């Protein structure tokens, strides 16, 4: 049995979309661990100023995402709070032999990422009304997208490690995977998929504080080469909401996984490789 919980304040204006994103984010951990989500409990913090319609829309967004995931919402709890928040406690199941952790990567494994990065930067821009409608739609769609389909593509391939990219940013989660597996990871920064306009906003300094906190926290674990561009490195530290799966898989199985991801209409890009452990957990080139 796998249990996971997450909730956070609104990062987009539309309450229905916020509900979808919060639910996709809460359910994601079960997929990362190789499980199938089954039931969920809603967690809702309601501000006095919120209308019934807004509350209904948040819960409807969550319910629709849960339905897509095949998850039954069995109940929940709400409290009053000046800052609204929503999320879920999710329960799923996995066969003990199929449970994936973030620490089983093997030397030579390729590193595959299934969603483009930059949601922290773009939602910061959105909060300041700097985002065009098209980019806003793209980032919301990306965050609300379930990791279910990417997880299904991995079935029968037994990747050696998997996690989802969230608040610690790509490099934080990768450093954790490398250290837990007693290996070092090399990331080719130019190959990492980025959401449209994330680079432009990073160059203009529209970067959330969490990205700098991640960088400072990881400074002894990560070596960044001079060839890596600063604006891309900033995005590699950007905290993600409902980010993609970060998968370590043998070279032999990686091709099959990439083909399956493509066939399912999912994004899947090789961003680096695990090597023998050296002084740093991650090397960014």
């Amino acid at each position: 049995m796998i249990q996971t919980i997450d909730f956070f304040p609104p990062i987009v204006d539309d309450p229905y979309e916020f509900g979808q994103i919060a639910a996709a984010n809460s359910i994601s951990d079960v997929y990362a661990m190789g499980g199938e989500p089954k039931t969920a409990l809603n967690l809702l913090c309601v501000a006095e100023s919120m209308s019934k319609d807004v509350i209904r829309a948040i819960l409807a967004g969550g319910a629709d995402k849960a339905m897509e995931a095949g998850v039954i919402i069995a109940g929940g709890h709400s409290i009053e709070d000046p800052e609204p928040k929503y999320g879920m406690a999710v329960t799923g199941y996995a066969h003990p032999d199929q449970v994936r952790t973030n620490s089983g990567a093997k030397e030579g494994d390729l590193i595959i990422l299934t969603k483009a990065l930059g949601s922290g930067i773009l939602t910061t821009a959105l909060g300041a009304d700097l985002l065009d409608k098209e980019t806003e739609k793209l980032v919301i769609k990306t965050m609300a997208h379930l990791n279910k389909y990417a997880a299904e593509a991995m079935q029968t391939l037994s990747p050696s490690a998997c996690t989802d990219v969230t608040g610690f940013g790509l490099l934080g989660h990768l450093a954790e995977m490398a250290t837990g597996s007693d290996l070092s990871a090399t990331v080719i920064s130019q190959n990492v998929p980025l959401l449209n306009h994330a680079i432009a906003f990073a160059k203009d300094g529209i970067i959330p504080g969490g990205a700098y906190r991640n960088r400072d926290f990881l400074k002894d674990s990560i070596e960044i080469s001079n060839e890596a561009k600063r604006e891309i490195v900033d995005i590699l530290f950007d905290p993600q909401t409902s980010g993609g799966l970060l998968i370590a898989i043998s070279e032999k199985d990686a091709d099959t996984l990439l083909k399956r991801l493509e066939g399912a209409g999912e994004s899947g890009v090789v961003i680096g490789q695990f090597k023998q452990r050296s002084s740093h957990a991650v090397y960014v080139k």
Partner: protein
Amino acid sequence: MSQVDTRGLSCPEPVILTKQALEQGTLPVSVLVSDMTPLENIRRYAENNGYKVEEKAIADEWELTITK
């Protein structure tokens, strides 16, 4: 010389205020900053848009002088 006081403000407001001051064109622009995040973000905005940034730490705060 114009001055922008961003102390106590959270991002991205300090960057936006700095951008507005730079666009008015009276250089140098002096920016007071009280936190690491706006310090880094203003540096990025200015350097990527062709300005030079000089940084002076004053107690727990910073003064950035931005020139061409």
